[in-house]
């Protein structure tokens, strides 16, 4: 069955499902008519180094994808829809074995003005070591991004997706496998789109895999930002940490739902997830639900937690006592809160670049 038929056969998802509890499929479908698969355009993609120079030969963006991705996980609906819609907008990011450019690489996606979709398959070579920033910008009413593929054995990758669209809906789905002893930092920085629905899944099927999933989310006005993150430990000695910081202003709503699974046989697995929400106004709303499924007894640890609250008055007073006026102190505390996860996403150069991008957004938004 092809993806289009598969999508149409799945029908309307159940709102009782964890995945669709807060944001219905209808609300993030391009037209709202879920029986429809409307034609979608192709965004512009380009690859460059962080300083604007051409990328070296060990990394290339090729049109097309070989084979069909594995959609065996239960996010089949989103994946089937995006896969079918992106048939003429498929790309493979090929990274050679031992590729190590020394500087972050930027994959820029310009969505344009009309609804568009892209499917990017990651083919990250063994023992490569690099940082990738996927920056999404544009004024499109709807943009869909499907990322699939594998980070192969021994690779070290900092992978940051930065959503900065000016409006519309952003539907994102990641289904990424992490190889033996690979070390991944998967960062999401979101401060755009009126509505975001994101479903991120990482599978560690080989021993020694290590992933840190990090989120820095800034919502304002009436934004609705919903991230669902799943990390699956399916092999021994795998390690994961999920740390998600959302700052919610205006009448916006952010949602973070997490699912950690440790399959039987994943001895020595070590996993934890925590969601922090900073509420910046009385009408802002934040929901976090961390969940665990542990089928193995011999684990190092497995924990979860969530914390919600407004700006700490004592921190505010401390900055005021150091000459920061009220707005300046508030901005600094929001930036600090987001920076706690942002700074973990990569090296110094990548961090500096991200801080700059987010500072501009922070200045512009009425939080």
């Amino acid at each position, binding site marked *: 069955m092809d993806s289009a038929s598969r999508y149409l056969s799945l029908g309307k998802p159940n709102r009782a499902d964890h995945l669709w509890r807060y944001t219905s499929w209808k609300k993030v479908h391009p037209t709202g008519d879920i029986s429809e698969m409307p034609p979608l355009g192709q965004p512009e993609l380009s690859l460059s180094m962080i300083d604007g120079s051409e990328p070296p030969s060990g990394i290339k963006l090729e049109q097309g994808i070989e084979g069909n991705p594995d959609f065996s996980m239960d996010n089949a609906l989103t994946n089937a829809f995006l896969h079918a819609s992106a048939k003429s907008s498929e790309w493979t990011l090929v990274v050679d074995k031992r590729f190590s450019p020394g500087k972050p690489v930027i994959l820029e996606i310009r969505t344009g003005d009309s609804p568009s979709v892209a499917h990017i398959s990651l083919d990250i070579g063994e023992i490569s070591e690099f940082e990738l920033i996927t920056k999404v910008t544009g004024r499109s009413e709807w943009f869909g991004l499907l990322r699939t593929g594998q980070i192969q054995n021994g690779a070290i990758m900092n992978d940051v997706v930065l959503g900065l669209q000016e409006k519309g809906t952003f539907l994102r789905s990641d289904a990424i496998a992490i190889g033996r002893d690979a070390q991944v930092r998967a960062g999401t920085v979101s401060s755009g789109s009126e509505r975001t629905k994101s479903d991120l899944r990482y599978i560690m099927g080989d021993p020694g895999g290590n992933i840190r999933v990090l989120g820095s989310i800034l919502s304002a006005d009436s934004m609705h930002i919903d991230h669902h993150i799943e990390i699956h430990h399916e092999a021994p000695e795998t390690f994961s940490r999920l740390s998600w910081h959302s700052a919610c202003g205006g009448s916006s709503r952010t949602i973070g739902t997490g699912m950690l699974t440790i399959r039987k046989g994943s001895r020595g697995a070590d996993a934890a997830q925590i969601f922090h929400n900073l509420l910046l106004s009385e009408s802002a709303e934040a929901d976090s639900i961390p969940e665990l499924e542990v089928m193995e007894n011999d684990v190092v640890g497995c924990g979860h937690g969530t914390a919600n609250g407004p700006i*700490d*008055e*004592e*921190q505010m*007073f*401390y*900055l*005021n*006592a*150091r*000459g*920061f*006026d*009220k707005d*300046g*102190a508030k901005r*600094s*505390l929001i*930036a*600090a*809160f*987001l*920076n*706690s996860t*942002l*700074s973990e996403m990569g090296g110094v150069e990548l961090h500096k670049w991200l801080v700059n991008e987010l500072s501009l957004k922070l200045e512009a938004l009425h939080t």
Partner: protein
Amino acid sequence: MSEKMPLLEINDLHAGIDGNEILKGINLIIGPGEIHAIMGRNGSGKTTTANVIMGHPDFDVEKGDVILEGESLLEMEAWERARKGVFLSFQYPQAVPGLQVGNFLRKSVASIRGEDEAKSSNFREKLANAMESLDIPRSFMARYVNDGFSGGEKKRFEILQMILLRPRLAILDETDSGLDIDGIRTVSEGVNAAIRDTDSGALIITHYSRILEHVQPDRVHVLLDGRIVLSGGPELATKLEERGYEWLKEE
């Protein structure tokens, strides 16, 4: 007493929190270049005095005034008081994870001393010198404000800020507590360097006479149940440490 206009004048200050009166009529005058100390038992109102002068929003002033160089502070926000030259070295400095020390110092100096000073090479030199004198390593700049700092690091960081901000009035709220002998000496040298032979002043809140041996105060005041009940020279600090506070009640 100096014949110049007082640096700080506290007149009949009554203040409290949630309707509970803690300060019950404090009177205190600090002249330019003077260092005063306040000693007293836990709960006597020392930290409340510091917070009220700095403008903590949780405290209500019922009566009296706090005047810095002829201008009442009470209607000012805490950040306005900081820009007027009031500095509080906190007893428990707040950690701000995510806010880098270097960035914080630059913004704070820009707010209080002006953008030009924060950007000047003179500032960078002053920062390097102050860090060296306080035994603070360069790596500090990349850390987050008070996040994971030891007790001694927090206190030295407060003094570093005081040196850079060059306040008119520095209030040190138990800056010596939790410090070892070397730490107290280092902090005291920082206070002396920032206040002595200047027109600024300091109010040191402490339980112990040790810091006062290094920073010789001009006056020592005893706070008891929200009132200053006795004032004297530096010898009063030693007497208090030897005899405690009970005899004051009897007298």
